């Protein structure tokens, strides 16, 4: 039994476009990507089950080799149900997110933003040190950083 090349190519295309979409920030695209990757996996299971054959049990006098393998199809059915349920949940989640923020895009992580802002602030202070600015909370830290910077320059 041979495997259809067309299915393999289709699977590859679906995997690559699905992964591309899942890397997007827009949550709707993430869901579309998930559907593509999920169905590509289903095709992978189908391909792994072997090539074409007649339906099992029903073959009149057919030999075992002529039958299609039914087990992967049972796997696919289960996987389809799971994918369906999860996509429904994801859509509800997107809708909720839309209601909350009026945006489809995944928000930035507040922790990441805080770190980025802190680094930017320190950088800013380092490049334009203001000798009259005494209000800075992290004065110790800034002067330490400045010393480090000066050392670096000396070297």
């Amino acid at each position: 039994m041979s495997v259809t090349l067309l299915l393999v190519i289709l699977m590859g295309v679906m995997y690559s476009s699905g992964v591309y979409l899942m890397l997007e920030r827009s949550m709707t695209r993430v869901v579309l990507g998930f559907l593509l990757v999920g169905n590509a996996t289903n095709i992978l299971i189908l391909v792994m089950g072997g090539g074409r054959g007649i339906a099992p049990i029903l073959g009149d006098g057919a030999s075992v080799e002529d039958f299609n393998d039914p087990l992967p199809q049972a796997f696919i059915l289960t996987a389809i149900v799971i994918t369906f349920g999860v996509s429904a949940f994801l859509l509800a989640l997107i809708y909720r997110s839309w209601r909350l923020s009026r945006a489809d895009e995944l928000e930035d992580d507040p922790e990441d933003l805080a770190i980025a802002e802190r680094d930017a602030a320190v950088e800013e202070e380092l490049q334009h040190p203001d000798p009259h600015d005494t209000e800075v909370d992290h004065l110790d830290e800034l002067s330490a950083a400045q010393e480090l910077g000066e050392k670096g320059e000396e070297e």
Partner: protein
Amino acid sequence: MTALIPLVVMLPLIGAAGALIAGKRQRLQVIVTVVALVAVMVVSIVLLIDVDATGALVMEVGGWAAPVGIVLVVDRLSALMLIVSAAVLLAVLLFSVGQGMADGDSETPVSIYHPTYMVLAAGVFNAFIAGDLFNLYIGFEILLVASYVLMTMGGTGPRIRAGVTYIVVSLVSSLLFLASIAMIYGALGTVNIAQISVRMAEIHPSVQLTLHVMLLIAFGIKAAIFPLSFWLPDSYPTAPAPVTAVFAGLLTKVGVYAIIRTETILFPGNALGDALLVVALLTMVVGILGAVAQADIKRLLSFTLVSHIGYMIFGIAMGTVAGLSATIFYIVHHIVVQTTLFLTAGLIERQSGSTSINRIGGLLAAAPVIAVLYFIPALNLGGIPPFSGFIGKLALFNAGAEQPSWLVYAVIGAGALTSLLTLYALARVWNMAFWRPADEVEQYESALLDQLTEAPGENNDSEGKSSPTLMIAATAGMVAISVALTVFAGPLYALSSRAGENLNGPSNYVDLVFPEGVE
């Protein structure tokens, strides 16, 4: 006796259905779920006693023999995991009942919470008894889908944001797992774990390696192993306290359990042992460095969770009976202690309205009971003798010293360092939140602390509430279990060793499923 095995999955599912029907009647819902979990607990105790005497139990579902039908396998490792999970699930359920009744359920709609929680329990139990790779996948999916709902419960902004990260990462890992199952079926023509183990030797080593790596990546995401651990500290802290506690205790351990099965039965021979050692080292060190930098107790605990997964991977990576026994003991210890600490964090949040150690102080005077409930598991996690954390780490290091190589010694060193840093991070929480007088909180300023980040979305609504007795009692129960693990460490370690013996080579497992040999 084998008839009892499906009960551990059936009972929580029946409980979920009952809780859903009970819907609006809260008290009835609570009774149904508690009864179901207590019943599972009794069943797992009976199973453990029986399995420890006879070695293992195998159930052929529907009466179909092994390669054709689905098998459920309970050996000592499974039984031990079942019993610990049931205990943890029950304690956290009682905690959440106490919290829900006191809070008026503004954030956790009770009519959904209980059924979902029971479905999560069914998924966890199913994963522990699966003797079939596809059934294991189903167990994972059941618990993951339930966890998506619990994670985003209430639908507030931060929870949705954290939930999206968590869900997308989990979906990727599930799809990877499904793709590996497909490839294993393509290569070997079976998904029965025992039969895979027998046929694996027949295929080319490079194909074996591909399948091995794919499964490890899929399970590694679930177990939160560095570098696949980034999602955990971002998503866990935003969920409600009891949900975080049960996720932290159980979900990552299901991943670790799957890795144990992968390494001992599917791919024996420890082909990736060295790679796993490196990963274990990095998981420990990177995780704990993250914890040291946190000012929020829940985030800090999430990072310690990641870092301590490293110890378990270390034991698995050694691939010896001693290493596996120590890992099993460590898993039991860590499930209990990590859950307890998250429950205590929930108590702290209720008591002081915040989990940021910059904002709270004087808890020792205000709530001495919570202080005790924090102090004992904190010392335990940090590995202070004589607690079970110390025993587990010592057993791991001992197992490492039995097969000396520079890599193993490096991991042992990293493990000791991680242990110290865990103690440092937890002691800082103690100093700031409990030891420091409350009136210092306003004045206290430090450049270092200003830099530390706080978890998003904390609310100060619940400031100054005292905690309901049931919440305290549930947490105290967990602390009591963790102390009992120390007191009865001898028998428990003996049991872990017997469980580790069972995992010595795949032949034990294969003989269980195919007593008359494989054709």
